[in-house]
Structure formats: C-alpha cells, structure tokens
C-alpha cells in the first residue's frame, strides 16, 4: 500500500525499462534497462548523442510505445500493461507533447489546434471554449486566435503547440527538441515560457542536444547506448552539482522515495 501511495505521488516511475526493436533477424537494443523517477514539478533535460535512445525513451514516457520489459507508472497507472485505447486516453489526459516541427494541423486555426485534445477527451463545448481560450492566453496569442499556422512565425507556432500541450492540464509536458527549428532568440523565448510553466508547478521533460537549452532544466539525464550515463541536478545559474554516482537507485533516493 505504501508503495502505491508513493507511486501516486510521483509523476513518473520507470524501472529497468528495456526496449528492443527486432529488425528481421537483428535485434536493436534501444533501451537496455533505464530507471528514472521524476516527481511532480521537476524540470528535466534528457541529453545524449544521436542513437543513444532519447527518442525511444520519449516515446515510452509519452505512452506512444510500451517497453519490451520493465515497468512504467505514470501518476500511479501501470502503462506497460495498457491497451492501445488506454494508451491513447493516457496521452490525452496526462501528456502534453511539444515537437521540434510544431506538428500543428495546417488547415485548423489556433483555437481549433489548441482545442483538439479536449475534443478527444469528450469535453463539452462551453468548457472546451473556456479552457482553450485560457491556454491561448497563457502563451500570449489571444490576438492570433483565429489565424492559421501558416500565418504565424515559428515562435508563435511553437507557442500554439505549448498551449495545446497544456490545455488539458497534463501531469507531464514532454518536449522533443522544442527549439530545434527556431533561431536562438526565439528559442530563448520558448525556453522562458517553459521556465514560467515550471514556476507555475508544471512537470516538464525536454529532450535536447544543446547544453544551453539543458541549462534551463534543474536536472539533466544523459543517455548513452540505451543506458543512463549521468543523472545530475543543478540550478539555473550553472552552479551544477553532480550526484555521487549516477545510478538509478541514487536517483530514486534523490527524488525522495523514502519520504513517502
């Protein structure tokens, strides 16, 4: 019982997650046993060289894919056991995605893009409207509400994507190279927005390969060859402190499992 209560206090628990792709006769081990705890209101950057398993980890965390083995609890729910339809529901309610390429629906205006998760959530129209307008206001695009994505700048598009990610008040915002397609000034603006959301209590995980982006986060997890190479906490002014060893078990204690 205690474990379960503890689990519910976590945003996210991955324990010994393995993801293996089978390509014909060959097996590709994208994740070889990854354990991560992320508590509420953490701000985590996931880094690592190309092919290290970042995207695979993102897909597992984002409930787009299930692990080959290992366990994954999201707000206490065992994701590894979920059916396709349950995964869709979990993504809808608990995850807000922000992609490198914005991934907006081109023919829908800002309002309808942001509203979309609520539609799939089956929410009533008046409630959708209120929440959508509120989310758009939070990213400062109220005056662009009825513009199509192609009438917006890259930064504005990414803000629409952020509004869409947070409109359903997810447990976790998952951003994959959110500044990858933006110039550095606009990228900073977007990261400032993540900082703001974090300050307001949002849990955020950002995948990036750029150090200056990772510096916005308060914890950096480095992957290499499908394993966690380093898991460190730091503050924003680069006064990083590295945990003694980067073992997943250490991360557990650092995340405060014992406090439950």
């Amino acid at each position, binding site marked *: 019982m205690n474990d379960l209560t503890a689990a519910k206090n976590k945003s996210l628990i991955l324990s010994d997650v393995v993801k293996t792709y089978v390509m014909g006769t060959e097996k590709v081990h994208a994740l070889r046993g990854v354990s991560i705890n992320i508590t509420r209101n953490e701000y985590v950057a996931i880094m690592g060289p190309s092919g290290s398993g970042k995207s695979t980890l993102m897909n597992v965390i984002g409930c787009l894919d299930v692990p080959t083995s290992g366990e994954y609890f999201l707000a206490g729910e065992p994701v590894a056991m979920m059916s396709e339809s349950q995964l869709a529901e979990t993504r809808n309610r608990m995850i807000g995605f922000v992609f490198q390429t914005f*991934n907006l629906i081109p023919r829908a205006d800002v309002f309808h893009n942001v509203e979309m998760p609520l539609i*799939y959530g089956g929410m009533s129209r008046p409630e959708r409207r209120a929440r959508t307008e509120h989310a758009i206001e939070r990213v400062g695009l109220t005056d662009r509400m009825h513009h199509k994505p192609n009438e917006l700048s890259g930064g504005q598009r990414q803000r629409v994507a952020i509004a869409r990610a947070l409109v359903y008040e997810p447990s976790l915002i998952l951003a994959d190279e959110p500044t990858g397609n933006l110039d550095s000034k606009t990228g900073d603006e977007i990261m400032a927005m993540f900082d703001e959301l974090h300050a307001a209590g949002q849990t955020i995980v950002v995948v990036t390969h750029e150090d200056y982006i990772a510096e916005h986060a308060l914890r950096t997890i480095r992957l290499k060859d499908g394993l966690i190479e380093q898991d460190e906490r730091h503050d924003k002014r680069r006064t990083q402190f590295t945990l003694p060893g980067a073992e997943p078990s250490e991360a557990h204690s650092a995340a405060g499992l014992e406090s439950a």
Partner: protein
Amino acid sequence: MRGLMSITESFRIALSAIMANKARGALTTLGIIIGIVAVITTMTAFNGMQNAFRQGFSSVGSDVIYVSRMPWIIMNDFFLYRNRPNLEMAEAEKLEANLQGKAIVNPSMDTQRDVKYESKRIDGIRIVGTTEKQTVVSTAVPDIGRFLMAFDVSYKKKVAVIGKEVSDGLFDTINPINKEIWIGRNKFRVVGVMEKQGGSTFGGPNFDRQIYIPISSYVKAFGGRRSTDVDIAIKAPSIESMEALEYQVIGEMRKVRKLRPSEDDNFSINKLDTLMGGFNSVMGVVLGLGLLVTSVALFVGGIGVMNVMFVSVTERTREIGIRKAIGAKRHSILLQFLFESAIICLLGGLIGILIASLLTAVINAVLMPASISVPILIVAVVVSVVVGVFAGLVPAWKGARLDPIEALRYE
C-alpha cells in the same frame, strides 16, 4: 463520457477537411453524381412508364372483370388456348341471365376496318360492337353528341361513336355529327365523338383510334364466322366484391359451357390487375437490368472515391500521428475519414438529385408523365451515403491503424 469523441465533432473535422480541398472533393463526387443520376433516372423512367401504362388503360375500369377466349397476356403458352371455342353471343346472354342482375354485363366484339369520309381515309381502325352499357364498364364518355343507346342496339341502327383521332383524321374542323362514314363496305352515321383518352403505350389499344357501333349492327355488318368471338365485360358493384364476383362468374361460365369438374376452364378471366401484373413483371426485368447497369456506374464512382480517400489518408499521415499523439483513438480516426467519404458522396448524391430533377422535368415535358417520388429520393440519399461509407472503409481503417510514432515521422 470521458474519452469518447462525439459524432458531431467527427463530422465537423471531416467537413473542414473537405472544405480545405474543395476542388478534389468536387472531382471525386463526379463519379457519384453520374451514378446517382443514372439510378434516379432509371427509377423515374420506370415509374413514368408505369404511369403511362396505367393512363393508357384508364378506361379499363379496375372493378371490371372480362371473360374472353384468350388471356390478355400470353407468354409462350399460346398452344394451350388455340383450340378453345369462341365465346358466343348466346353464351354472353346466358351468363347475364344466370348472374341475375348482380352485376352489369356488357358483351362486345371487335375487328379492324378501314374507314372513309368523302376523300379522307384511315386504315386499320378498331371497330367495337357493343351496347349502351359500354359507358358503365369503361370510364369513357362522349365529348360531342351522344353514346349508343338501347334502341340503337335493339333496332340494329347503323350509328357510330368515333374516337378523337378518327374524328380529327376524317373531319378535321368539320362537325362530324350526323355525317355518314364508310366502315369497310357499310355506311354508318356518326352520332358522337368520344373524349380524348391519350395515346397508346406499350402495345395497349389506342382508344382514340376506335369506333363504337351497336353490337347488333356489328354482327349484321361484320359477323362472319371468324369474328363471332365475344368479350364479356362484367362490372362489379364495388372493388371489394370483385373477388367473390370472379368466382361466381367462373362458376356460371362453367355451367353455361357444361364443363365437367375434371375439365379445365376453356375461357379466360382478365382484369386490369392482371395487365398491370404482366406489365410489372416485364418491366421489372427491364428495371433490374437498368439498376444493374447503374450500380456498375455507382461502383466505379465508389472506386474513385476510395482512391481519393487513400490519397487523402496518405497525405495526412502526419496529421493522423498528431491526432493520435494528443489522444485520438482508432475509432475517432476511422470516423473522421468515414464521415469524409460519406459527406463527399452525399454531396455528389445531392447534386445528382438536382441534375436528375432537371432531367425528369425534361422527360416529363417531352416523353411521358414522370416525376421523382420521395421514396426514390430517399433511396438516392441512402445509396450515396452507403457507397461513401463502403468506399471510405478500407482507407479509413488503414489510417486508423497507423502507428503514431511512424505517422509522426512521416514527411
């Protein structure tokens, strides 16, 4: 209910997708438009022919039973009736006596003759020998002058009531009343002109091209051995009593003919219903063939829609990935694309209905009395939606099954 997207939302998403690509939607509907126009016109034409047929026989009352030597509709069983005896005047009189006034009995005979007035001449006019009761068993009434009367029949008067076409052909603008015409080698005096009945359709007799004369005069003028075959029309007091009357007539005829129980009837009972039945069974085949051809047109149209839907799904692979990432389930994606193809086809169907309406108006004006009925409209709408759903099924399923990760990666 949480996690279940409403139908109206699927509908709106589908509609916005169509609106975003109007030109393609319009092109796609073309096949469906053609199919639906074909379906409606086939059905309307069938309906029109039915109406024309009914109109052509409108003077054959639906509450009248005819006793004749032959059935009206002979398929390939002519040999069964060939050796039947003619119906004699005497038999008609006996039958009338036996029915004891329960129904009105009118005997008639007919033949073909050329008719002449001064220099004008029309060939092959149907000459009907009948009685004053003709106007009771059929709905036709004279337009000018009078019909035959009892004393015309009793005194074998050589008078004639002519059809509208005969009147127009022989007399044009001259008043035909009391003019003497030649029917074959006999002179008859015109006493009346029947009102116009409408032209002949589908092999039915043209009632405007016939002449009524007293049956007694007919026998005297044309009654050779070969033309003594009488048709007996028997009018029931009401439609409801038709069936009982029919059995009674069969019974009395068998008595008149002194048939033993083991012997088959050697006469035929005919009704408007039999005629309509025959028409319907022949036209049913025509309709079936027409619908077969049109379903092929619709099928081809449907294949076109399916193709476009495949393109549409492939083109929007990324969109499907996005929608799935933010929580769309399979059924939401499935519904979105099914609605899209159903709406495209429905639009095609509606345009088809519009075009078919214009076509029907033209048919109505130049060919025959045709109109689009509500059931035909319903069929057209339902058919177009069903075609849309079927055409969209496989592409929509393909889209719904996409893996979100793969779909998001699609360029």
